[in-house]
């Protein structure tokens, strides 16, 4: 295959950037959907919504503080509550330093919580952090860069999902991971659901903030791209895979964030469905989750089969889903028609 110099020099570095943007946008959509679901259960579950707000704001404030620390502005004041966070720098820096600290504020909340999750995933699936080597697969063009990025993400996803589907709920470390996944999944969002809907704070609002941030200083954005290109050329000249590796990390972070948001979605949906059930019946789906898991693990202890962990999880999910369906059918009016 003939290699085009324009492709290698100009377009190839952009492949991974587009890849990361694509995943980030997916993450944004999931965040928006989660916010919609949360707003639906807000009336009955005000504390839960406040809790999710707090996690989101906490991470946003930490990111802002991190921005000031990185730019060596220092922190003179740091406070967080369930409605807002406030960070004040010791020295008010202008120009690129201000821009960097604002970048942390706007973009950090999307990546920092999932970066925490990625760190914890490393302890469970350490060997899944795979980066394709250029010696094996020469990636110099846009499409090859994209394939390399995709391969890194695919390898990671296979290991990550493999781990997720074989989670042992009798292992306290795995329980801790699940709790962290749900806990952070609730808070991977920069904006929050207010007590009163005064201003529409949604995905468009977040995007507008980011757009304003970028357009306010196009020079810094250009500088950032220039740095990325330089880094890519160095990687290319030294036959290294650092450029893809760096952006793959952002891809992994986005995958983890999406999974975490999905798990949080299931939890919110469960809450939403049980809200429609009569008081004591609403407890049944929650108790079915641990009970069915314990039951099947006892059964598998006496009748061992292959992939016990996977089938135990599957059984737990199926039984719980079935219980919910039966309860919804017989205890609510959802599936009933007028006679």
């Amino acid at each position, binding site marked *: 295959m003939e290699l085009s110099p324009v492709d290698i020099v100009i377009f190839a570095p952009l492949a991974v950037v587009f890849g990361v943007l694509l995943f980030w946008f997916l993450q944004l959509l999931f965040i928006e959907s989660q916010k919609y679901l949360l707003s639906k259960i807000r009336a009955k579950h*005000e*504390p839960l919504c*406040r*809790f999710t707000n*707090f996690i989101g704001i906490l991470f946003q404030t930490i990111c802002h503080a991190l921005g000031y620390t990185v730019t060596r502005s220092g922190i003179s004041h740091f406070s967080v*509550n*369930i409605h807002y966070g406030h960070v004040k720098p010791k020295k008010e820096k202008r120009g690129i330093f201000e821009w960097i600290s604002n970048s942390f504020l706007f973009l950090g909340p999307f990546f920092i919580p999932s970066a925490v999750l990625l760190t914890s995933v490393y302890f469970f699936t350490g060997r899944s952090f795979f980066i394709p080597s250029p010696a094996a697969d020469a990636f110099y063009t846009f499409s090859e860069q994209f394939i390399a990025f995709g391969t890194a993400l695919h390898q990671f996803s296979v290991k990550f999902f493999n781990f997720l589907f074989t989670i042992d709920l*009798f*292992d*306290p470390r795995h329980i801790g991971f699940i709790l962290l996944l749900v806990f952070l999944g609730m808070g991977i969002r920069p904006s929050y659901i207010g007590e009163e809907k005064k201003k529409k704070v949604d995905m468009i609002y977040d995007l507008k903030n980011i757009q304003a941030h970028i357009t306010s200083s196009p020079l810094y954005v250009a500088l950032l791209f220039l740095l990325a290109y330089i880094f890519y050329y160095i990687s290319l000249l030294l036959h290294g895979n650092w450029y893809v590796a760096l952006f793959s990390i952002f891809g992994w972070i986005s995958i983890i964030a999406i999974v975490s948001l999905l798990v949080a979605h299931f939890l919110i949906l469960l809450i939403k469905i049980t809200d429609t059930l009569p008081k004591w019946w609403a407890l049944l789906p929650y108790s079915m989750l641990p009970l069915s898991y314990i039951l099947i693990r006892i059964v598998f202890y006496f009748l061992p089969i292959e992939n016990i962990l996977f089938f135990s999880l599957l059984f737990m999910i199926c039984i719980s889903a079935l219980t919910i369906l039966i309860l919804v059918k017989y205890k609510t009016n959802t599936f009933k028609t007028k006679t």
Partner: protein
Amino acid sequence: MDQNEPLQNEKIERVLSPHPLSFMRLQSLCLFLIIWGVLVGWLVNFSEYKTLLGSMEWYPILVWGGVLLLVGVIASLITIRWSVLILYLGVFLAGVGFMWSQNWVKDSGIFIPFYSIFISVAGFLLVEGYRRSHKYIISNLRIIFKGGIFTKRERTLRYDKITDIDAKQGILGQIFSFGTVIPISASGFGLGSDKTLAAGGVDVGIKNVRFLGLFGGGKEVQTPRARSYYELHGIYPYKEVKNLVENMVQNNVITPYQQKQVELQEEQKEVQKEQVDIQKQMRDLLKKQMVSNDESESEDENIKSV
């Protein structure tokens, strides 16, 4: 005072109890016990470290007790209360004593989780009992703080005696809408102090001759603090109750401007009283005059007729 024994003109506005999560500090002690106990059980029986921990029968007990006491020391240093360490030490010693007396040391991997669950459940029940022993009554005249599991305590605070109100709401309180309101009285009831002390020692000398010098310093900061029986601890809904108390205090406190107005009104009353007296005197005089006029007229008529 009982709720059904109000004072004259007293109206009960609210009867409150602390929120179930307001004693989270105490509940978290039990929570840690349960989590660590179960974790030790898992480590000894199911984890990859089970052979290591099972090699000596005292290893699980040492690991369990070591972490328990370490957390006790850390928690005591943070909260400046040695009671946490003493509590964990008590739990540990009682557990070891029981295992030793029953000859269950070799089965510590099974005993520890069950013992931890039992102690934690008992702890949760105690905390719940302690919480339920609190009762705060807010009336239009005063706040009554009642409580005590065995010893009954009661504090009555009239609104005009409240000089300051301290209110605080932690993250859990913000999430579940509860918080603590400490009314501080003129006598300083509701105030505590944070003390920091630093001390250093010098030991110099050789062989048998040694000099020892000690130097140190301290700092004290006054801070609103009271026992949960003497403050509105973990009340729900926080904002409404806080506003209610503040309004009650405001309604019962006479500001200098209002005091001047009252004085002026009293002066006006006296002037009005004097005016009324003068008017009364004038009226009496007029009456007398009228009576005397009537008498003189009748005398004249008599003379004419004669």
